Each structure stands twice: as structure tokens, then as C-alpha cells.
């Protein structure tokens, strides 16, 4: 494994600002990004990544290859929560197992974005359709987890279950909808649109990402305390499951003939865990699950693990096999 990669990644401003956020909490600084700024920063990031993905998608060719990737993405997003559930169920309640399974089956857009910045720095290209893959991977895990919950949980509290609401929460929740919509708009508006929006969607992007990661560092550090409740099993799970997912994703990408950049992005998607779309959906669909387990796991362990250690590890392995 290439240590320059690790150091180079570490010295990237976005990663450094994540650490600054962690540090702020550790020294008990009152530094804070007040609501609703983090919300708007994340809307901006989804908007920009979606739009750029759409532009790339419209510009590219390779139709069957893209369809193959998108199918692989949906399959992984549906299978991961299944095996995650059966691992978790040995120690946890059905509700908590389902919620955590959904968390790890779904993806984190900011991990994706940070990975994209990482590749860009190294000059490795990836396809705009990977954004579509990301958007498609947000929802299936939610559906699978809720289905598991309906099947396995005895006590349904007599609450009316609404398929319509579930589909809506899974496919039309704010972040999924914005990224999909921006993707379509990016694809429709083509080169001319892309050029007008470039200063907004591309040039200031890394700066906004730094700010957002500063906030994520603050939030993650505040969640670290909750990890004591989660215990050693879940802490280990939050690091090992991403590695397992990557260990499945990399060979799959190889078999499907993905390019180096696409393979890396696919791997990071499988390894990442949701902390925006899934918690929002779980509150409504599985309110019995305990958010102080699944949120800190994805936010305070898996996210930092992926962007600090995971990215260089996955890329080193991919480099090894692809070159």
C-alpha cells in the first residue's frame, strides 16, 4: 500500500477540515455551523454532483456497459442489507438490525464526493453515470430493510403500514429526489448549460465541501459519546462491514470490466453508509429502531474510516489488480 496516497489524501483541505471539526469538539470550542446552513450546503453538494453527473452522462457513450453498472449497483444495494441483517440479528433486536442493515446497504453522497475529489487530485477519471449509480443505490436498502422488518418483527404495534409512504420515503425523499432531478437536468441542458453553471457547480465546489466536512467533523465528534452505548460489536461492525463490502465490490467490478476510476467509485459506494436518507426514512418506517446506534456508527466511524483509511486501501488494491 502506497503511503504517499495516505499522506496526500490526508493533506487534502476537505479531509483536514473534517479533522478541524473533530478538534473543535475535543477542545470544547464553541465553533458551530448554525442550522439550516449544513442543510443548504448538503443540498448544494447534491445539486452540483447530480448536475455534473448528468452532464457527463449525456456526453458519454458505452450504453450497455452503463446499464450493467447500474444493475450491479442496485443488486449490491439490495444484497448488502440482507447479509448485514443476519450478522446483526445475532446481537440486536429486529428493529435495530433492520435500521443498521439499511444504513450500510444505502450510500453516503459525501463519501462519494470526497472520493471524487480524491480521484481528481490523482488525475484518475470516472464516468458521470457513477452518479446515477449512486442515486440508484440510496433507496433499495430502505425497501429491503423495511420488508425484513415487516416479515420478522412480531409486534407491529398495530400501526397501519403504507406501501405508498414507503416508496415515497425511499425514492422521493429530498436528497434522492434532488440528486436524480439534477442529474436529469444536467443531462438535458447539455454543454451550454454546463458552461454557464460551471463556476457554481465546479469552481467553488471544493470550498463548500470543506465547510460541509467541517460541520460533519463537529457532528461526528459529538456522536462519539454515543458509541459507548453501541459497544465493541457495533464499533467493529462499522469498520469490518465496509471492508467486506469492498471485498465483494472489487472483484465484481473486475469481472464486469469497469475502468479503474469506475471500480473505485463503485467500491466506495458499496463500502459507504448512509446518515441522511436512511435515518430520515427509518424515523417514519421503523421508529422503534434506536437512532443513537445507527447514526453514530455511520457518521462517527464508517465515514471517517472510509475517507481516511478506506480510500487509499481500496485504491491500492484496485491499482494492484487493474495495472
Amino acid at each position, binding site marked *: 500500500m502506497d503511503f504517499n496516497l495516505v499522506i496526500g489524501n490526508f493533506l487534502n483541505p476537505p479531509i483536514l477540515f473534517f479533522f478541524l471539526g473533530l478538534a473543535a469538539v475535543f477542545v470544547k470550542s464553541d465553533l458551530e455551523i448554525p442550522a439550516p446552513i449544513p442543510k443548504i450546503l448538503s443540498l448544494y453538494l447534491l445539486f452540483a454532483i447530480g448536475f455534473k453527473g448528468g452532464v457527463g452522462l449525456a456526453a458519454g457513450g458505452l450504453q450497455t456497459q452503463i446499464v450493467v453498472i447500474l444493475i450491479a449497483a442496485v443488486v449490491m444495494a439490495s444484497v448488502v442489507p440482507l447479509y448485514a441483517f443476519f450478522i446483526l440479528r445475532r446481537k440486536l433486536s429486529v428493529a435495530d438490525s433492520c435500521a443498521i442493515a439499511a444504513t450500510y446497504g444505502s450510500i453516503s453522497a459525501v463519501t462519494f464526493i470526497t472520493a471524487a475529489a480524491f480521484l481528481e487530485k490523482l488525475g484518475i477519471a470516472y464516468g458521470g453515470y457513477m452518479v446515477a449509480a449512486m442515486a440508484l443505490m440510496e433507496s433499495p436498502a430502505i425497501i429491503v430493510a423495511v420488508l425484513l422488518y415487516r416479515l420478522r418483527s412480531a409486534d407491529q*404495534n398495530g400501526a397501519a403500514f403504507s406501501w405508498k409512504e414507503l416508496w415515497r420515503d425511499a425514492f422521493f425523499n429530498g436528497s434522492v429526489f434532488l440528486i436524480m432531478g439534477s442529474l436529469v437536468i444536467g443531462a438535458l441542458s447539455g454543454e451550454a448549460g454546463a458552461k454557464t453553471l460551471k463556476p457554481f457547480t465546479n469552481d467553488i465546489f471544493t470550498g463548500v465541501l470543506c465547510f460541509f466536512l467541517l460541520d460533519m467533523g463537529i457532528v461526528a465528534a459529538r456522536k462519539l459519546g454515543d458509541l459507548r452505548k453501541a459497544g465493541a460489536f457495533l464499533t467493529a461492525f462499522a469498520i469490518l462491514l465496509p471492508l467486506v463490502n469492498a471485498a465483494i465490490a472489487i472483484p465484481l467490478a473486475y469481472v464486469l470490466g469497469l475502468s479503474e476510476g469506475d471500480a473505485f467509485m463503485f467500491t466506495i459506494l458499496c463500502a459507504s453508509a448512509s446518515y441522511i436518507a436512511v435515518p430520515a426514512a427509518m*424515523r417514519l418506517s421503523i421508529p422503534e429502531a434506536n*437512532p443513537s446506534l445507527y447514526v453514530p456508527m455511520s457518521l462517527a466511524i464508517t465515514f471517517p474510516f472510509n475517507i481516511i483509511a478506506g480510500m487509499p486501501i481500496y485504491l491500492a488494491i484496485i491499482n494492484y489488480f487493474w495495472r
Partner: protein
Amino acid sequence: MMPVKRIEIIIDALELPDVLEKLDAAGVSGYTVIKDATGKGERGERGGGELSGAFINSYVLTACPPEQVAAVVETLRPILKRFGGVCLVSDAQWLIH
């Protein structure tokens, strides 16, 4: 001045639209909402510092005639049971203008 009951409801913000619909259905004449509230209760802390915006409370205040309280309370009970939250009822005088 007219004697009324002040009903205060603290509920997951995601349930707010549902609660307001139920209040309308129960026939209350109006309500006031403060959308972003944080807090702590049986189900742990709700810090509002969440990236998902999913763990935030809303505060609803409605003043209604005493005889409406029972209906309002019964319509809210199942939501509170399932999603947590608090409902307080107190006395007040409404200024008729």
C-alpha cells in the same frame, strides 16, 4: 375574555403535517407552530445537530374551548404512542377582539 384550554404538543418534526391534519379534523379553530425545537425525553436527545434533519421536534400550540380537549387529545394519542412526544394541557383566557 373567554376561558380556553391551551394544548401544547411537542412532536417529531416529520410527524408535524400529520398532527396538523388531525387538529384540523378535530375542528380546532387555529394553531401556532414553532418548527424547530430540540429537546430530550424518553427516546433520548434530539439535538437538532443532525445532518439528516430527521431528529428535530416541532412545537404546536392550540387554544380551544374546554369541550374540544377530549377530541383533540384522543386524536393525538396514537401518534404520540408510536412516535413519542409530549402533550400538555393548561388553562388560559382568550382575548376576544
